[in-house]
């Protein structure tokens, strides 16, 4: 029995060895390098390998960092809110209204945006939202406006719209799966015990869908904080987020220790917020269906 277990373990290790090696090489190693860099001194174009906490002190004291980090968190929170709120009805429709034979087709339709590269999609939003873009010229042709609307490009609104669209499928899928798992007789039981459809949704469907909502929120929140392309293109470079700031330190200023310290700090903040979010919702995540 023991030898059987051992050979099974060996087999398992053999199976995961290639992806594990790959993950160590391209994920763990660079992360450790960044972590190491963040404690080194900057010697203009070189890195001086001497331990220091100076980078972190500078980051935490820097008002620009504060502003950009807060903006990143704010944009990511808005995007998460918009995406989850808009994705929920889609997932609900998919789970409750679409007939079982057609669900696969609907899921396929939802993944269509992935057929185009992220960069091109972001650029298309620029075309849609731009000063002479689809929306402005359309509204002007219709005679509804005389001057182009300016609040839809090169600002936070535009970034939220773009990112919410880009991440929508990532939010729809986990919510859809959580809704699919709900035993439909629970909803009938809710009605049977005297609750209207709306109250049954509030007291039964929503709490049981929360694991999907939490997953969707994290899946959207974590990558959007570090998004680089959208602030660069849609924000017009004038409203940078944390990824743009790291890029500036790393490449434009060639201050790798400072860039690394920014990256590590941002990572820690995201980790803390994510864990806090999970902790707040832990009673929903413990439910075993």
């Amino acid at each position, binding site marked *: 029995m023991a030898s059987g277990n051992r050979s099974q373990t060996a087999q398992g290790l053999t199976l995961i060895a290639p992806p594990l090696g790959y993950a160590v090489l391209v994920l763990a190693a660079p992360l450790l390098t960044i972590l190491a860099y963040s404690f080194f001194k900057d010697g203009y174009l070189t890195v001086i390998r001497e331990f220091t906490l100076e980078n972190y002190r500078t980051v935490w004291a820097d008002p620009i960092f504060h502003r950009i980090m807060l903006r990143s968190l704010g944009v990511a929170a808005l995007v998460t809110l918009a995406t989850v709120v808009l994705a929920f009805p889609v997932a609900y429709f998919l789970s409750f209204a679409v007939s079982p034979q057609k669900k696969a087709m609907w899921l396929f339709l939802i993944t269509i945006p992935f057929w185009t590269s992220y960069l091109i999609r972001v650029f298309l939003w620029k075309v849609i939202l731009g000063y002479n873009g689809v929306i402005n010229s359309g509204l002007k042709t219709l005679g509804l406006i005389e001057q182009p609307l300016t609040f839809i490009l090169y600002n936070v609104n535009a970034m939220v719209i773009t990112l919410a669209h880009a991440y929508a499928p990532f939010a729809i899928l986990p919510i859809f799966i959580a809704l699919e798992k709900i035993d439909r*007789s629970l909803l009938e039981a809710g*009605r*049977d015990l*005297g609750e209207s459809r709306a109250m049954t949704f509030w007291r039964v469907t929503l709490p049981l869908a929360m694991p999907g909502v939490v997953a969707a929120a994290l899946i959207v929140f974590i990558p959007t904080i570090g998004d680089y392309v959208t602030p660069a293109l849609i924000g017009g470079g004038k409203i940078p987020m944390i990824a743009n700031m790291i890029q500036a330190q790393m490449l434009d200023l060639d201050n790798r220790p400072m860039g690394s310290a920014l990256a590590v700090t941002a990572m820690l903040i995201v980790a803390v917020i994510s864990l806090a979010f999970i902790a707040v919702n832990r009673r929903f995540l413990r*439910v075993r269906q």
Partner: protein
Amino acid sequence: MTTQNPGPKSTAAHRAAMAGARPMIEIRQVQKHYGDYHALRGIDLTIRSGEFFSLLGPSGCGKTTLLRTIAGFEDISSGVVLIDGQDMQDVPANRRPTNMVFQSYAIFPHLTVAENVGFGLRRDPRSRAEKAAAVEQALEMVGLKGYSSRASHALSGGQRQRVALARALILKPKVLLLDEPLSALDRKMREQMQVELIKLQRQVGITFVLVTHDQEEALVMSDRIAVMFEGQIAQLDGPEALYARPTSRRVANFIGVMNFLPARVLGETADAVQIEAPGLGRVDIPLANVSQADPGDDGPSIGFRPEAVSLVAPGAQGANRVAEGVIDEVVYYGDMTYYDVRLDGSAGFDGQARPVRIAMRNVFGREVQDVGTRANVSWSPGSLVLFR
């Protein structure tokens, strides 16, 4: 405890009390179509107040659809459903005076036992403490005292069932609907719950409507049973009448085991039908025991239950008639022995042998007979049912 406690089920007093009870559910000409599928084909049914009523039938017979129609989960295509005299046409499920115990129990997995039981009390005007006390009381009634704060996933099947019962009964519905509530339990647990459900029903005095495909369960628990086939009620009777005098061969086949022998009708008097059956000879069947044959049957037949006849010693004297035969098969069950006996002359009209099954209780001192030995079968005309 209610004052109109109906007492033990099979007593005449209980039956009389039930027969006089006012109607609780009235179903008139109810039809239900799912597209091309005709699920309910004109159901007419009155369920009395305080009654333990069962809808019995094979899967797909429409019994669950009928129950869900009463609960308000299914719209009916035509017809009328009245509950306590009130038309349910435009009354949604959440406003009907019914509560349901679901087949899957439908215990909310995100709530504790107490939260599950108290789910329907949200709009109850009582104080929080009073509601908590009501929940405790309901749990005690179903034998789950002290389980309030348990997580629902930590419950066994039987406990889930009890929570579902408490959750429904705490709302004091006029009708409790039970959708195959015991089908997920093991045999021992099922038998225990059957007895508990009967006791509970007497205690609360609420009308129970049970859906089941298990004929034994229906016989054990019900005051009356509606046997359903293909969206129609085939027979509506008390358990004893249903078992002893099924009105069609189909019902007879569905409820328990029945032996069938071909019969030939010889004549008819004012109160009996005279027939001849191979192996039994000429018999007068009282008119009360004359039922319908199924459309597919080839000619009339007589039926009798395995326990309505018995093996007796040769030359035994008694009021019953005796037929002779040879034991074909012996199946020993511990408490019972089943004998398949080929009656002399039973090859009958068409030359086909039809052994009849006879159930004998293995009481002390009675020996199990061997295959191939001659046997005397004692029977009485009153235990035969004629299907024609």
